[in-house]
């Protein structure tokens, strides 16, 4: 009988046999859901972290033996079935240790940046939790999604992005991954071109230190299929403030120019053109183009600006859990009321703000959106923004397709280095988002939109965590290999996955869910 140290991973079986994502657009029957806890949940303890690693390895071994797929669940944020499995679901949310690098000798001598900005977070930390923790150390995340409920591991695995133009998606500030790839192997993965950890640390954990740019870039956005991301090594930055301006503006030539080029010189923004915004975001109501666009810009400051306004107190009135479902039913049954519903919502929900100021964690909070929502997001090159919008507007007017019961959103990030980041368009990607209730009309609109984008030969990509129309062919067409345009980066990604699992091939199928198989990316 093995001696127990008392530090073993706590895996609590649950009675849950059906899993539903946060946005409630699908349910998934599952074999089992396990709640995972560190043996000492109240103090971040690296020795316990090591024991939890062993526990996760043993769960992978069990799944392999039983021939089941296994998925580590993040914040359940994804609209797509990227995180779904009919096998074993691991609720990793309680695994939320976080560590600083305060001791000399824990960072590789080749690491030249400020080690006080380095942090190691266990997979279950939500971005909101991390921001709260970092704030206590006068640090902040470089960016996040619009909401902060995603786990750090889930957010980077699907390429979650905000609209921090110069930063990119969440994966851009990740510099190391601790991946559990099988019952007998775990890996500390970094770029060879950017070594960070002192080799003694992974050695002590029992992890293989792998420094490989190709493998790391593939693993960054790997949709849960490169093993369990147990820990994430990332770079934060000193605490900063964001000053937010939200306003209605005419959708004129100056705004279109900014949306197509990120050149803000013609746009009269609150600060001089020499200081471009940190964050730029536009919302358009396709039912009321004359009403203009709702534009959000944020400026970043090291100190709270003197004219910074306090954050508004959260209102007592919020959208109900069933509001989206009601909107879906109403707009499905009576299509011509759609503009009325959307116009009213726009007026009520999108109010102007001038100079509200807060830290990153205060501005980007956990979402309050609940209920059956739908969202599809496409990464498009900047010069295709107008064309994609025109396609959407045309479909919105087509009685066979529209009206679309939602809004068009535009956010912007710099191109990613990750092999399959959907924010891949150089030099920056516009994320064109179609958000609305989860209804038949919405789904039909999405399909027609994707088909029309294909027909117009707009090179777009799909957000992995949102509703998409991917299949094995489409995904390969969307990601041409930059080194070899005749090939697809998807094959390079699959090759990296094979390389990672070559010592534990049985585990490869453990991390291949139905969604991945459907895309032919499990081989």
């Amino acid at each position, binding site marked *: 009988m093995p001696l127990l140290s008392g530090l*073993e991973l706590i895996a609590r079986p649950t009675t849950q046999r059906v899993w539903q994502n946060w946005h409630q657009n699908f349910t998934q029957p599952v074999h089992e859901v396990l709640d995972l806890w560190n043996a000492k949940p109240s103090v*971040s303890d690296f020795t316990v972290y090591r024991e939890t690693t062993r526990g996760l390895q043993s769960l992978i071994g069990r799944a392999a033996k039983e021939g089941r797929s296994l998925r580590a669940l993040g914040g359940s944020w994804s609209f797509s079935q990227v995180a779904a499995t009919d096998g074993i679901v691991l609720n990793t949310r309680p695994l*939320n240790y976080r*560590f600083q690098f305060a001791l000399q000798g824990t960072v590789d001598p080749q690491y030249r940046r400020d080690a006080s900005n380095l942090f190691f977070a266990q997979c279950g930390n939500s971005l909101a*939790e991390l921001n709260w923790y970092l704030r206590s150390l006068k640090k902040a995340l470089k960016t996040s999604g619009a909401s902060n409920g995603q786990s750090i591991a889930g957010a980077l695995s699907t390429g979650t992005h905000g609209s921090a133009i110069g930063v990119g998606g969440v994966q851009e500030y990740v510099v190391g991954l601790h991946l559990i790839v099988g019952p007998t192997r775990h890996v500390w993965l970094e770029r060879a071109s950017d070594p960070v950890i002192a080799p003694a*640390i992974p050695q002590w954990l029992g992890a293989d230190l792998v420094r490989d740019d190709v493998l790391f870039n593939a693993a960054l956005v790997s949709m849960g299929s490169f093993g369990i991301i147990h820990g994430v090594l990332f770079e934060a930055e000193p605490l900063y403030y964001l000053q937010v301006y939200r306003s209605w503006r005419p959708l004129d030539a100056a705004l279109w120019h900014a949306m197509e080029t990120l050149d803000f010189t013609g746009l009269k923004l609150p600060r001089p053109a020499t200081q471009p915004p940190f964050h730029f975001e536009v919302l358009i109501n396709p039912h009321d183009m004359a009403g203009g666009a709702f534009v959000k810009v944020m400026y970043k400051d090291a100190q709270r600006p003197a004219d910074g306004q306090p954050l508004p107190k959260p209102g007592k009135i919020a959208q109900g859990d069933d509001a989206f479902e009601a909107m879906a*039913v*109403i707009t499905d049954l009576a299509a011509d009321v759609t503009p009325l519903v959307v116009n009213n919502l726009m007026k009520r929900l999108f109010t102007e703000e001038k100079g509200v100021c807060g830290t990153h964690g205060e501005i980007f*909070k956990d979402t309050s959106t609940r209920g059956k929502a739908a969202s599809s997001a496409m990464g498009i090159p900047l010069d295709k923004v107008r064309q994609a919008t025109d396609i959407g507007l045309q479909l919105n007017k087509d009685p066979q397709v529209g009206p679309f019961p939602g809004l068009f959103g535009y956010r912007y990030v710099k191109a990613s280095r990750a092999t399959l980041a959907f924010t891949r368009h150089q030099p920056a990607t516009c994320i064109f988002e179609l958000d609305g209730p989860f209804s038949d009309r919405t789904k039909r609109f999405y399909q027609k939109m994707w088909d029309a984008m294909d027909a117009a030969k707009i090179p777009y990509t799909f957000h992995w965590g949102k509703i998409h129309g991917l299949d094995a062919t489409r995904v390969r067409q969307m990601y041409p290999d930059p080194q070899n345009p005749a090939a697809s980066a998807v094959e390079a990604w699959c090759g990296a996955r094979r390389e990672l699992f070559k010592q534990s091939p049985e585990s490869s199928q453990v991390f291949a869910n139905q969604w991945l198989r459907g895309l032919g990316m499990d081989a």
Partner: protein
Amino acid sequence: MNLRTRAAAAAFCWLLATGCYHYRAGVSEAAAPRAADRYTGEVVWALAWGLVQETPIVNCDIPLAGTDTLKLPVAEVRVSTNLAFVLVTVATLGFAAPARVEWKCAKAKPEGGVIPLPR
């Protein structure tokens, strides 16, 4: 039928089919407890015009090694009712009033650690 009438008719159909009323208490502060798991809950009854009430017992304890237990707070409480519950309450003239009470347990808020220097 004009647009508003049609919208109202569609909303009424939806209400009959799925309508639920939720009331939620949570903490909006940045450092508030975060939910560790899913909603757990039960239907509770208030009887005799509230003179007798059921009280759900919330257990957010995490058994640790040995006999240790970590007692965690609740992260969120949701109380729901629906058309059927309301009808029961009305039909019994308020004698019996059911509601569904659900909660999510919180994660631990671990103190931050420091990556140690292995010896």
